[in-house]
């Protein structure tokens, strides 16, 4: 006797699963410029690395007790490899009932479920390929009662945020639960034109507020990525999206008990870039290209920018220094003169906590005149969000290196220093600092003297010039109140030495980072 008949039935059931919602549903899905969930997993993961789990789940139909067909569960998941490293991966199958939940004994994934338990138990990254619209009022008719909001499993989604890298990719139109799930990620991405994300879609919005909007107007990448920062990055198409996910994960450890992988590099750590000597204009009012500056310092072609189009007064990117992963936080003088507004503050807070959680040392390249000022900024709660980012910096325990490129003022300036650690600050000769810039402070501090002068404007300028004479960073270095002033061309070599030296220390503080207290 053999089990061949059962083996053949298994094969048949797997073929049904491979057909997803059937050729018509798949063709409709393709016609919208979208890949199926199986194509997505194949496109993202290492070839032949996907070990599916739960492929038999679905609803079988039987004729005279014989299997006649299976509508597969609208969720595909399992174990796979990306760049040789294991990941738990899953995604809704939109071709089966729009990827909505389907009432199995155990959830496969989506919000909690087996795939998230797998990531938790094996301490491996989770990749969510989101393509579902969430709950439907039709479920009440099916069940005979309405369902209390939320599912068991979402608490796992929250727990994972402290344990393993979580990537959420919005691949279609996501609303409700799947949209919420997309936000619970260390890094999220969506596809331009073919994916949208919102709390509720156009029909609900029209009914609630009378606003007539298309899906794209309401939750396309321009809104969700560029304006709101709800999702971190936008990809050109699905292939670009997979490349970005692979790239992002290449900087991440498998979990918080490991250190990020070190890459081989042929970029000499002591590379000296002449261009750095004149990248910052002597005229203080003229900005410069901070992204160019960063590219000259870090390992060649090693950067991956997080939230490149949101909160543009700050640049946050992952990069490598002599092969080791670092997080770079740099002010962008081209936007608000580098002043921290609400969006920049929110972006900096998230990035700081990301780096702290995964033991990625931070390099601050500082050119910040302070928090953004003005009525709009006050109304937007810049002070509160700004202090939240300062709080995050003062709570973080991962080593930070501070390089002051130009301005470093006020609370926003303080938030760029490693107060829990070595408090190591180095500066370029172009650096200047204080509690506030001279030109803003003189009029307030010397008001009476200026007003009573025969020529108040002249006196104002004289006072400014007097105070500016104390502004040389070399005077602060004499007092060892800044640890060093360096030739800009030495920046890479100097930083690489310290990044190399701190690797042993990083290994002593792996594990879950607990953050007590209430952020403001």
């Amino acid at each position, binding site marked *: 006797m053999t089990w061949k008949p059962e083996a053949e039935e298994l094969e048949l059931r797997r073929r049904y699963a491979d057909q997803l919602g059937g050729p018509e549903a798949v063709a409709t899905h393709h016609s919208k410029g979208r890949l199926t969930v199986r194509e997505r997993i194949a496109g993202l993961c290492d070839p032949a690395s996907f070990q599916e789990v739960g492929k038999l789940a679905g609803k079988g139909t039987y004729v005279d007790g014989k299997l006649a067909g299976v509508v597969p569960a609208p969720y595909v998941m399992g174990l796979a490899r990306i760049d040789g490293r294991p990941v738990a991966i899953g995604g809704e199958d939109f071709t089966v009932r729009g990827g909505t939940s389907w009432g199995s004994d155990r959830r496969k994934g989506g919000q909690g479920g087996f795939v998230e338990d797998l990531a938790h138990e094996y301490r491996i990254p989770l990749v969510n390929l989101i393509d579902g619209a969430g709950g439907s009022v039709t479920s009440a008719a099916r069940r005979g009662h309405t369902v209390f909001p939320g599912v068991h499993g979402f608490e796992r989604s929250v727990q994972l945020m402290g344990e393993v890298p979580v990537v959420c990719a919005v691949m279609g139109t996501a609303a409700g639960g799947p949209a919420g799930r997309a936000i619970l990620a260390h890094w999220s991405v969506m596809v331009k034109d073919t994916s949208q994300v919102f709390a509720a879609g156009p029909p609900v919005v029209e009914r609630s507020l009378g606003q007539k909007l298309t899906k794209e107007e309401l939750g396309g990448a321009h809104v969700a990525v560029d304006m709101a920062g709800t999702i971190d990055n936008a990809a050109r198409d699905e292939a670009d999206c997979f490349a970005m996910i692979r790239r992002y994960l290449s900087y991440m450890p498998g979990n918080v008990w490991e250190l990020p992988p070190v890459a081989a590099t042929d970029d000499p750590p002591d590379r000296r870039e002449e261009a750095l000597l004149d990248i910052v204009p002597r005229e203080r*009012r003229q*900005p410069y290209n901070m992204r160019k500056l960063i590219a000259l310092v870090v390992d060649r072609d090693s950067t991956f920018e997080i939230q490149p189009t949101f909160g543009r007064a700050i640049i946050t990117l992952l990069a490598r220094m002599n092969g080791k992963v670092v997080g770079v936080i740099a002010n962008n003088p081209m*936007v*608000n*003169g*580098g*002043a921290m507004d609400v969006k920049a503050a929110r972006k900096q807070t998230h990035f700081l906590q990301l780096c702290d959680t995964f033991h990625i040392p931070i390099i601050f390249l500082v050119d910040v005149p302070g928090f*953004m*000022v*003005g009525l709009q900024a006050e109304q937007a709660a810049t002070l509160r969000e700004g202090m939240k980012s300062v709080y995050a910096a003062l709570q973080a325990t991962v080593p930070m290196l501070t390089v002051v490129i130009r301005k470093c003022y006020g609370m926003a300036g303080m938030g760029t220093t490693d107060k829990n650690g070595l408090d190591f600050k180095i500066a370029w000769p172009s650096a200047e600092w204080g509690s506030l810039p001279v030109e803003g402070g003189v009029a307030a501090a010397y008001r009476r003297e200026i007003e009573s002068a025969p020529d108040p404007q002249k006196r104002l300028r004289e006072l400014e010039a007097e105070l500016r004479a104390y502004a040389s960073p070399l005077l602060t270095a004499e007092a060892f109140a800044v640890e060093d002033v360096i030739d800009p061309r030495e920046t890479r070599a100097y930083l690489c030495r310290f990044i190399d030296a701190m690797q042993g220390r990083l290994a002593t503080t792996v594990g879950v980072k607990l953050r007590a207290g209430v952020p403001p």
Partner: protein
Amino acid sequence: MARKEVKSEITGSVWKIVKQPGDGVGEEDALMILESMKMEIPVLAEANGTLAELAVKEGDPVTEGQLLAVLDV
């Protein structure tokens, strides 16, 4: 020939107009310089072409997203 709108990425004011309507512009040429947070922020052409219209003049306040100029590219 297509028309390309140039919008302000920042809130501030127009400090200096560099190019006038009819002027040829090259990619990355400064069309005008805005002043924001005491910094002079150049507004750069995204492509080669001709400046068709200016929507602002020196001294005008501008907000993020406001139309500054139109290029023929």
